[in-house]
């Protein structure tokens, strides 16, 4: 393992050290290639296996059996010839496979013959009244604190939203002895019907369903009831959150809390694939933009492959299989295995990946978010946290004739802050589409304006020292 920065060139660069990236690196290793695995975190594992190498065993037990799976994935990399670089932010990627990065504090521009993007997912940002108050966080942030530092809410927590992670976190908190003041499920009741046609196929992967039911049962036994079909979430407070209100069975309720964790599903993190110019499309079922890839993970840009949740939400195990498949394809493209050999090596992963996907249509239908939640924040709700642009300001721009995301961005500065629109791009698309009656693909996404993560003038100035005016 290297302490110096990455070299100027690699045959294969893998970005992201979660399940997809780790599996890809392990599969590509041993073929005599020069491989770098770049990851923004301090330690490998991604979000799901965060802190897998350093976690005390007692805390690991709390997280459930699936978490331990990360040990083997990380171990395979530690014992390989892959150069692993933690603490590495990628701020640029182009179609020539030039990669701008900051490792530690130093900036560099490196290149690769093949790039595998395994950047995973982000939690879907959903703006609602009070979501920017201190004390309101994503469920994912709660999980990070739990995994990395064993930090849990001391004064109890309200959990709200929709999606598998919400249930998992509730279960983990319950086991850690955290007081769950309320578990508010925003999944609409009619989703049961929507999901029903997909149930038979989902039964082929019933271990997922059974696990979900087990979590629910455990929570119930512990006296934590889930309120179903909740709507109209609002966080209130002066300096920070003091209470949460919501609607349930036609009644308005308020509950006192200094911590609200919300979760509304996850969506692919596509800023790098967008920056590289890969083609993307809107997936109605997953309610998100996805890069277009073939069965081997090849994007529309030559030499850039994408694996894992960054392609579309499939979960950790799918990501592993996809990671290995893209790695085999990259190794083939680099001339180290024949097409025949690639197909042979890929056989099991392809089969298992198909099996993994049985559950997805059911989950996507079951956790389908209502349009009202995504596209109808009140006018005074902040949508862009960086530039503090409200839904009302966005609607005003639309009413002045600006009918696509980028025009709204120009006019309102929505999406022009340091997060590059990561927090608001989707919401703006939804709001514009609803207000104009256009389809989401017509409204489009913000164009990416690198650097994807901020870069200091000194870091930028340190690049290409021989270049002059």
């Amino acid at each position: 393992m290297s302490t110096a920065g990455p070299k100027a060139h690699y045959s294969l660069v893998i970005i992201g050290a979660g399940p997809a990236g780790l599996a890809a690196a392990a599969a590509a290793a041993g073929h005599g290639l020069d491989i770098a695995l770049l990851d923004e975190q301090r330690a490998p594992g991604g979000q799901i296996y965060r802190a897998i190498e350093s976690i005390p065993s007692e805390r690991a037990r709390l997280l459930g059996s699936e978490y331990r799976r990360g040990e083997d994935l990380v171990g395979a990399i530690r014992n390989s010839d892959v150069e692993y670089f933690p603490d590495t932010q990628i701020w640029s990627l182009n179609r020539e496979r030039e990669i701008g990065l900051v490792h530690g504090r130093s900036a560099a521009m490196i290149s690769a013959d093949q790039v595998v993007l395994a950047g995973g997912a982000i939690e879907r940002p959903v703006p609602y009244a009070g979501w920017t108050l201190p004390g309101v966080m994503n469920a994912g942030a709660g999980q990070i604190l739990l995994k990395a530092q064993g930090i849990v809410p001391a004064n109890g927590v309200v959990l709200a939203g929709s999606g598998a992670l919400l249930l998992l976190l509730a279960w983990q908190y319950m086991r850690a002895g955290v007081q769950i003041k309320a578990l508010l499920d925003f999944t609409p009741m009619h989703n049961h019907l929507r999901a029903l046609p997909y149930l038979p196929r989902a039964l082929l992967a019933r271990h997922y369903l059974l696990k979900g039911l087990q979590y629910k049962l455990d929570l119930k036994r512990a006296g934590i009831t889930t309120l179903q079909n909740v709507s109209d979430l609002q966080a209130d407070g002066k300096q920070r959150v003091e209470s949460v209100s919501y609607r349930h069975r036609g009644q308005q309720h308020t509950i006192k809390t200094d911590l609200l964790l919300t979760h509304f599903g996850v969506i692919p993190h596509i800023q790098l694939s967008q920056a590289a110019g890969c083609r993307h499309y809107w997936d109605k079922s997953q309610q998100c933009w996805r890069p277009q890839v073939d069965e081997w993970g090849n994007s529309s840009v030559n030499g850039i492959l994408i694996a894992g949740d960054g392609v579309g939400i499939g979960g950790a195990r799918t990501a592993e299989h996809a990671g290995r498949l893209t790695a085999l394809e990259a190794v083939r493209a680099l001339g180290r295995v024949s097409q025949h050999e690639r197909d042979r090596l890929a056989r099991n992963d392809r089969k298992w990946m198909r099996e993994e996907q049985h559950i997805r249509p059911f989950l996507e239908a079951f956790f389908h978010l209502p349009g009202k939640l995504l596209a109808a924040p009140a006018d005074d709700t902040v949508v862009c946290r960086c530039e503090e642009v409200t839904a009302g300001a966005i609607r005003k721009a639309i009413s002045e004739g600006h009918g696509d995301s980028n025009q709204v961005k120009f006019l309102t500065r929505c999406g022009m802050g340091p997060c590059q629109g990561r927090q608001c791009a989707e919401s703006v698309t939804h709001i514009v589409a609803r207000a104009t009656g256009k389809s989401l693909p017509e409204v489009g996404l913000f164009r990416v304006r690198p650097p994807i993560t901020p870069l200091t003038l000194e870091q930028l100035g340190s690049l290409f020292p021989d270049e002059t005016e």
Partner: protein
Amino acid sequence: MKTDTLIIGGGLMGCSTALQLAKRGARCVILDKDSPGRHASGVNAGGLRRLNRHPAEIPLSVASAEMWHDIESLVDNDCDTRFPGQIRVAENREDMQKLQERAALVRDLGYAHEEIIERDALYQLVPALTPNCEGALICRDDGYGRPFHALNAFRRKACSLGVECHSAARVDQIDRDRKEWRVITPKGEYRAPVLVNCAGAWAGPIAATLGEPVPLKAGAPMLMISERLPRFIEPVIGAASRKLSFKQMQNGTLLIGGAHMAELDFKQQLTEMNWAKLAVSARTVLALFPQLKDVRIVRTWAGIEAFMPDHLPVISRSSTSAHAYHAFGFSAHGFQMSPVVGKILSQLILDDQTELPIAPFDIRRFRKDR
């Protein structure tokens, strides 16, 4: 559909021309292949600069500056303009010499807007500047605006006076019978006795269709912007011997340009940042303001713009048709000129003359047989 004047290109020049025509009662329609201000007009650096203009541009730039200072009366909106001055810094004796010669040249032409300031005055105006600069050339009431806001203000005002602005109306064909022009677009067919070419980087083929090809080259100058900072500088800063345009915007962000070009795929309308050149740009900024080394750059972009070989625009009657006009090729310094260009074109169209000297911008200068 039929109108008096068809304007190709919904950028600032097109909208400004339409506004001036509409003010005088003429009907016009703007055709834009995308949406108004999608390229150079909407995403340029917003400089309102007379400082260091080519001598041929000075009369127009001076007239335009007067219009910018009273922009609200023209478009009912201040376009986020500010006029804290623009400065060209001399880092050494040679720079100072160069700037003094420039100041003398402008004076000899009969203008007083550019003046030399010595070291003390410079540091009073820009205390944040690195020590040991010699002095500067300054234009005290130059400034900047916000381009997309300006574009919208011009467009909206024009529309309020009856101008129609048609987006997604790419010009596929132009021809003319005895009476009028016929322009065919995916949005339909348009007819008018007068045609104006304000198509920016896309103006070349239109001029060629009119039988007067021009050596226009599309380019994409890069800009970058920082996170917000507490205000520490008022004027816009350039340097005598470096490629730089540097200002702190109304909201505290730093906008950094320097006419470094992005890689451009013109056909696809795609730009890709040239990080080597942006690195040079960053080093230039740090040479003048070393204390900014930890300031974070949050965005870079490049707008597609028309460049002429002599870096002067074409503002001209057509040389082949009595009823066509051109305004394009501003070579990355057109924003400031847009109000006056609209006025000039409207005068050419309605009065067949203008009081401003536009001979240097005649399209015939590119004729092969000259």
